[in-house]
């Protein structure tokens, strides 16, 4: 998919035209590495005899250092490689992510059955499904089948939630 925004000749379509996109990604990784490294300095120290001179922070710090080096390589490479234009993310994507979060919140607060029913009603409608008969049938049959299969057959325990008294 191509970015529909017009591109002036000689000017990168990427908004931060001073830095290539991968350079910004590399900087973000470096910031993550810095924060992660700082967190490792707060780990408790174990007695030398128990730790055998390899403290709990040693290995994570080693891995974070490797990550920082690799981010540095990406930063340098980003200036050499042409940057592909990324299409804009449609609003439906963050909204769908929000629906995922809402589903898990409903799972936690209302219980699995209401959460599934709301998901089976809401998401198809959000994604443009207008065959309401099918949507309602899906919202009834699919949660029932899933609950029957997992709670009934596979013995997965679900918290009943405030709406389901049994």
């Amino acid at each position: 998919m191509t970015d529909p925004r017009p591109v002036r000749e000689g000017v990168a379509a990427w908004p931060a035209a001073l830095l290539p996109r991968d350079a910004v990604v590399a900087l973000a990784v470096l910031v993550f590495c810095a924060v992660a490294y700082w967190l490792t300095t707060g780990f408790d120290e174990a007695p030398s005899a128990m730790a055998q001179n390899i403290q709990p922070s040693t290995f994570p710090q080693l891995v974070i250092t490797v990550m920082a080096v690799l981010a540095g390589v990406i930063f340098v490479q980003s200036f050499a490689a042409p940057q592909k234009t990324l299409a804009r993310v449609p609003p439906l994507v963050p909204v769908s992510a929000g629906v995922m979060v809402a589903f898990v919140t409903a799972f936690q607060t209302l219980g699995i059955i209401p959460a599934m029913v709301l998901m089976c009603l809401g998401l198809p409608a959000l994604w443009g499904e207008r065959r309401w008969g099918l949507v309602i049938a899906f919202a009834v049959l699919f949660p029932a089948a899933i609950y029957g299969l997992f709670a009934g057959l596979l013995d997965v325990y679900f918290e009943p939630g405030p709406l389901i008294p049994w």
Partner: protein
Amino acid sequence: MDAFLSALGLFLDPMLLVAVLAGTVGGVLVGALPGLSSTMATALLLPFTLGMEPGMAIALLSALYCSGTYGGSITAILVNAPGAPAAAATAFDGYPLAQKGRAGKALGIAAVASAIGGMFSVVVLIVAAPLLSRVAYDFGPPEYFALALFGLSMLASISSDAPVKNLLGGAFGVLLATVGMDMTTGVERFTFGMWELSEGVHFIPVMIGLFAGAEFLTQAQTLDRVTVHAALDAVRLPTREDFRKCMGTIARSCGIGSFVGVLPAEGGTVAAMIGYNEARRWARDKSEFGHGDIRGIAGPESANNAATGAAMVPTLALGIPGSATTAVILGALLAHGLRPGPHLFTETPTLLYVIFTAMLFANVVFLGFGLVGAKLFSRITLIPTTFLWPAVIILAAIGAYALEQSILDVWIMVVAGILGFVLKRYGFSAAPIIMGLILGEMVESTFKQSMIIFDHSWAGFLDRPIVLVFVALTVLSIASPFVSKAWHRRRERENPA
């Protein structure tokens, strides 16, 4: 022989037969659905197999792996939308052939080539895995550390476009594996005071999120895409003339797939691309490639299925996944308390023969289903996205929850899904993160043990010949994408088109 006969005896248990059959059919269905892959299906199914007997669980997942790799070819041929990444190359010639009204022939070739490749790879697995596991008797912590690093370094070559990003993803996965209580000292790391994280981040919710959650958000981007189905005539067996034309390609691709599959982290996708390229390169008449040459279907399909059994070789013998799906199967082995390596072969040989038999069975069964039921399987693509993906996300959430009945795992799944979408957008793959997460514990524990053995001197690694071999292979695998790119650029400069 006794173990083999015991395994055959177990197959008289109808429950085991049903499980393997269900895995085979499920694999073809899932493989046929664009956006869902056998990796995702095994990840979704894994939590629900934890209550099964280990043999039944691994047999089901292995059968799903074999048939899912084939299933991707159905939609690759009919709608030019590969159901699995490993089927991408099949679409190059499969869809044009289908557009010429010969979809049945294309599917028939795909089914037969896949089955031959798959059965060949199971033979490779039966022969090579025990041999490789005996080599592992000489492995100590330094060798396992070097091997795990080699496995992680192979991530660089999964995608030649982003080798450094793959390595970074693998390192991030290893870092994620350090979350929780350090087993040696009892110190909590990256838990932020949450006791639920003291046992670490389980790889299953992360895997489900990175694959299924990220794909769910990707599907939200493409809802307006209309898929055009090619008409399907009856599926036909390849004729004698077709066999004569494809035999060399299938034989070559079986070898390619088996070699690539044995290499850590490579798997069917890489094997299929190489299989297609070699089929084209060795053809005397290349004019039909890209326009419906049956060798362009046979090549990638036999290669990607030949990689399935071969990818199980390092997984079972060494505990290093040969592909993303075998990384999941490795996770299943570990979750069932089985440790891959030589002891698996000496202490539980019957289990291994159950896995081998299940994979052989799956290859035969999907051949039959593919020839008889391809038309039926292709109808799976008619399920509207608006119903399919809510169902997948609900299953993903329940799968993550069912692991330890913990809502935290569901939240981890959601966060991993959103992170996976963002990472994918910026050129990072999910598979390296999962590989790193699964191998992370092994990397850390063998590193610590090696440091103790060598009295904290890195030079100790250089005294071990097997370690030196793995170090050389690691350097080679990290350098190869860059060398290959530089070589291609030089060729283009010398021979401009």
